[in-house]
């Protein structure tokens, strides 16, 4: 589904990604871990098409298309979804209205007719249940005055609504209480299928107990320095990043 080859990117003069290689197949869950500032959010942003970053080398194939050639909104329409680490506020625009606009834009891109009000409402009700989110939250201005946890849950609700092929969750677990974490994880698990894939950016092993990854990658200084199965996360939790850093120093 997604093939990243030797991806290098910088912002201004600062080189952040230093040759990322990553292969994500349909049906898989990949966890990306790594110390603060290692480039996890940058990788997510570059995949989503944020313009502040300049790709200096490498290429990315997504479902047979050259991803880097596509505008960010087209990438979303192709099925890439990013749950933001810091979702922004849009005053005066409700989540409901926002999702209606987004969903119909994506449908338009795919040559489908817009959903009518009834069908949209039905879909919304169904997805609300899935992520146990309250209607009243969805009628408020998007993210305005939301608690940290509410923002994250709202991101997952949006993901459920848009049913992406590849979802990238950037620290969606941070700031969630135990119950919310379980709800969010349940939502993600229910949305998992053999046709879609998920990249989880996280600092905590705890999330990976709920959403069991097929692969764990460690990002360090803009490079994937170690990959393994789910046990790698446990090992990291036990030994910390110094273990990786030392290993690299020796090599």
């Amino acid at each position: 589904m997604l093939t990243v080859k030797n991806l290098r990117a910088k912002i201004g003069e600062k080189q952040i990604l230093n040759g990322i290689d990553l292969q994500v197949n349909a049906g898989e869950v990949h966890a990306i871990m790594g110390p603060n500032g290692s480039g996890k959010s940058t990788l997510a942003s570059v995949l989503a098409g944020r313009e502040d970053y300049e790709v200096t080398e490498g290429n990315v194939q997504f479902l047979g298309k050259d991803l880097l050639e596509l505008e960010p909104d087209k990438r979303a329409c192709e099925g890439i979804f990013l749950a933001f680490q810091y979702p922004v506020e849009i005053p005066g625009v409700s989540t409901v209205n926002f999702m209606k606009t987004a969903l119909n834009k994506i449908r338009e891109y795919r040559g489908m007719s817009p959903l009518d009000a009834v069908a949209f409402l039905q879909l919304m009700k169904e997805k609300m249940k899935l992520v146990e989110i309250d209607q009243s939250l969805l009628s408020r201005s998007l993210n305005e005055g939301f608690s940290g946890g509410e923002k994250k849950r709202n991101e997952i609700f949006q993901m459920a609504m848009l049913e992406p092929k590849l979802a990238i969750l950037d620290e969606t677990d941070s700031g969630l209480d135990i119950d919310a974490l379980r709800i969010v994880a349940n939502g993600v698990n229910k949305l998992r299928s053999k046709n879609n894939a998920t990249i989880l950016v996280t600092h905590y092993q705890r999330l990976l107990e709920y959403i069991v990854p097929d692969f764990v990658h460690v990002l360090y200084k803009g490079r994937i320095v170690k990959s393994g199965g789910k046990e790698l996360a446990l090992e990291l939790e036990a030994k910390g990043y110094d273990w990786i850093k030392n290993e690299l120093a020796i090599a």
Partner: protein
Amino acid sequence: MTKDNQVLEDITSKEYEHGWATDLEADESPKGLSEDTVRFISSRKQEPEWLLEWRLKAYRNWLKMTEPKWPNVKYPKINYQDIIYYSAPKKKTGPSSLDEVDPELIKTFEKLGISLTEQKRLSGIAVDAVIDSVSVATTFKEKLGELGIIFCSFSEAVREHPELIKKYLGSVVPMNDNYFAALNSAVFSDGSFCYIPKGVRCPMELSTYFRINAANTGQFERTLIVAEEGSYVSYLEGCTAPMRDENQLHAAVVELYAMKDAEIKYSTVQNWYPGDKNGKGGIYNFVTKRGLCAGDHSKISWTQVETGSAITWKYPSCVLKGDYSMGEFYSVAVTNNYQQADTGTKMTHIGKNTRSRIVSKGISAGKSQNSYRGQVHIMKRATNSRNFSQCDSLLMGDQCGAHTFPYIDVENNTAKVEHEATTSKIGEDQIFYCLQRGIDEEAAVALIVNGYAKEVLNQLPMEFAVEAQKLLALTLEGSVG
């Protein structure tokens, strides 16, 4: 040049949608302004002697006045002798049905999306369309007539209801109120008159579409709305104009008069030609709008969505004379390219326990300048009066300007006046968030701007709000920097 700026350039170059002219055989006054011009207009309209005298008095006043210099707008000197002050579509007598209306005119309406026929009728709107200076079609008159409501062109009102016009003309905006009001009083061509009798709730939105048509013709409408005790009316004004090379002067006067317990809601969507993307052409819009809450517990509410005109000079105001009377001003003013707007409101609290509320949302893009100018004046007698003002500015790009000039004048220490102001920029983060959900840049800007202006748009009647939303989106497409 960043990509956003590129998009801005591309899309703001979209041409004005309503830019075309209709060829109607015009019956015009010669160019220029003199007592003879005033007499020409008055005689063309077969006006009574007292009205001619009133006009002449206004004209003589105007001669002694000077153009205001304080607005934050710049424009070349207007040559008042180079303007045609009267022009009317040729028609001996007013038509009684649409079949009698000039087919060119019907086409004009259609291009504007105004249908005088079934659509509007079914949606419950009576349309009094003004093309140039003469009202040519009025619908729904009979139905309103049954309730005793008068809704007609100003000229007709002068003929049919002279006692009302004589009583209220100039009662809210005196003929010598300001330079442009005096000019209007001297040469006003036509407009609308609306009278709601005691205790009557007008069952439909009253709607007027103005349109500037014949080349080089200033347009000077006059609107007068009188709401008797305990009555209610909601009035819609929508405007659009054809593309012109010369600047066109427009100086309208609107007077609202609300008796005890009466309520007048006045909504405007203004979309006159703003000039091209280089700042050439466009309408000069110098309007005087004022409402008088004459009776206790009366209420006047102005809602405006201003997207057009090269220059806007406009301060819909409320004089809160009756005790417990209330004034509201809700405004969205958008400027793009080289547009300049100096707009706001004036709330004058005279009566006790009077309330006013101001919500102003300015949006500037391109190289435009957008100023909010508001005055809250609490007079000595106005015990326990309240005002709340919220003035927000939204900037798109870094070549435009937003300015706020609030004047607060409190002469009674029991009054409470609150003023809040914010300035923000559409963030790249907000745009990217939308893009990431599949929403393209144009739609993203529309979404964000409509969200920003929501509190004001919510004040508009439903069908108008939808139009206004589209207009905002159209005016600002891609204007992100």
